[in-house]
């Protein structure tokens, strides 16, 4: 999208098309385009370049408003270990994102312990075990089919005993409309909170960038089950734009904390709102 040419109806239509095709919710899209028209009038913007610039700034503003900015940074507890609980629907990249975070923290000299909290899916523990070896981090695991809350409990104990800086817990993929699975997640939360003596420092919901409007339902349901503190947006190395996060920011005040850009341990970045918005228009 060049944003060149006349500042006419076609320009607004092109912008609307781009936003919708980036998975920005239709209502969010209509709102920001409506506000852009108003800004163009009030600020007497006279070129499509200036209008596009104005739109980009308003999108960045959605992602960085005070209610989001105050919880943007990844939490570090003053009572280690800092505990991250990683949740989300099936196949979005939870386990791989945990490996990436482990790598990121291990490289900066932090001691990380991983909890194999997916005791359900075939070879889930094996998968995390390989990542623990590759990132040279410890893994706490139990037998397959056992209570996931017990694994996280043990990992917190191990974290304290071994002076870990971080304990990052994996959980099984679960669809947000399955009440029994969401109850299981609530139990993991309660057990974690009790043992830790406070709520988990981060509850990160992993979201696949190819996801459309269902992301809103996922976020709402996970937030009503546990206190989601941020989003990890994965698979942004593909063609999907992940524009739904604008709606998540706007309506639910959810910060995007990290983005996944590939399948290797190093393919992770701290979320940059300006870079993200620029990416929508590329």
């Amino acid at each position, binding site marked *: 999208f060049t944003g060149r040419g006349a500042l006419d109806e076609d320009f607004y239509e092109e912008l609307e098309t781009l936003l919708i095709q980036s998975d920005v919710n239709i209502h969010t899209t209509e709102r920001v385009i409506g506000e852009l028209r108003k800004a163009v009038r009030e600020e007497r913007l006279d070129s499509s370049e200036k209008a596009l610039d104005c739109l980009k700034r308003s999108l960045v503003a959605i992602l960085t408003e005070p209610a989001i900015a105050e919880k943007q940074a990844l939490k570090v507890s003053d009572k280690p270990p800092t505990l991250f609980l990683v949740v989300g629907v099936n196949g979005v990249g939870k386990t791989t994102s945990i490996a990436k975070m482990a790598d990121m923290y291990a490289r900066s000299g932090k001691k990380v312990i991983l909890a194999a909290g997916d005791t359900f899916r075939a070879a889930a523990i094996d998968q995390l075990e390989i990542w623990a070896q590759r990132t040279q981090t410890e893994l706490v695991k139990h037998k397959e089919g056992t209570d996931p809350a017990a694994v996280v409990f043990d990992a917190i104990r191990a974290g304290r005993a071994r002076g870990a800086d971080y304990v990052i817990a994996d959980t099984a993929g679960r669809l947000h*409309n399955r009440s029994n699975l969401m109850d299981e997640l609530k139990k993991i939360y309660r057990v974690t909170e009790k043992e830790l003596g406070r709520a988990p420092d981060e509850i990160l919901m992993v979201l696949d960038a190819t996801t459309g409007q269902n992301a809103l339902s996922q976020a709402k349901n996970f937030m009503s089950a546990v206190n989601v503190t941020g989003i990890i947006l994965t698979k942004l190395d593909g063609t999907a734009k992940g524009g739904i996060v604008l709606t998540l920011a706007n309506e639910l005040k959810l910060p995007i904390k990290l983005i996944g850009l590939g399948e290797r341990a190093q393919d992770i970045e701290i979320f940059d709102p300006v870079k993200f918005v620029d990416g929508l228009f590329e």
Partner: protein
Amino acid sequence: SLSEKLQDVFQRLRGKGRLTEADVTEAMREVRLALLEADVNLQVVRDFITRIKDRAIGVDVLESLSPVQQVVKVVNDELVALLGGTQTGLQLSPTPPTVIMLCGLQGTGKTTLTGKLAYYYKKQGRNPLMVACDIYRPAAVKQLEVLGEQIKVPVFTSPAQDKKSPPSIARSAIEHAKANGNDIVILDTAGRLAIDEDLMDELGQMQAWVTPHEVLLVVDAMVGQDAVNFAKQFYERLPLTGFVMTKMDGDTRGGAALSIRAVTSIPIKFMSVGEKLDALEPFHPDRLASRILG
């Protein structure tokens, strides 16, 4: 729901005989909203509205159906027609083994679907073989082996140290199947981006070497506007014979199915409706149409 939204639009239509263009234009706005919220691709929505608008105008408001029901019927019928006919399974080859190759983006449910298809055909009295062609993802081979143990279906693997390429693993698997009397071979492949040329070439090579009877694109039902992009790219690179929508037990509307039908015309073969290996259903266009409409 769409019917309720259309009710509001048509409140003032009591006593009118026919739907005018103005009535229909307003109704189409609600239909457009419903389809976009269902993740149908924007361009596909535009084409769809153009097609049905003319059919909806001048539709006689019959005694038996209200204007709302008329419009919903036109929309629903067109959706069902576009989604394609009810599928009754895959094409089995008269000369075994029938080879089914699965492909798609990362995390869509291919490995699990391999188990589901194996279980489905085993229950029909067949002798399936699952093939672990994903040599990249940590514990992908183990994952398939665990599924194989659950349903007592053999899994063909190549020892990691052999460093065999996925296409050669597939080829060896077919030979193994012929020697062992397996009449269905299901190839699980690694998830990949459609824009990854090397990995797309790898799939192309696999397809060329083993000429599968079915090449199925495995699609996560919650996919949004991007569906047209990767579906088109997979379709241009491989002779896809159909696609499978997974995680249909979620609450996503599944509009991506319409998008993919629009840009590839390949049929929807199955719906995966859960994590268990028996959670596989044949495709019903009428059910998916009403789900998309909401």
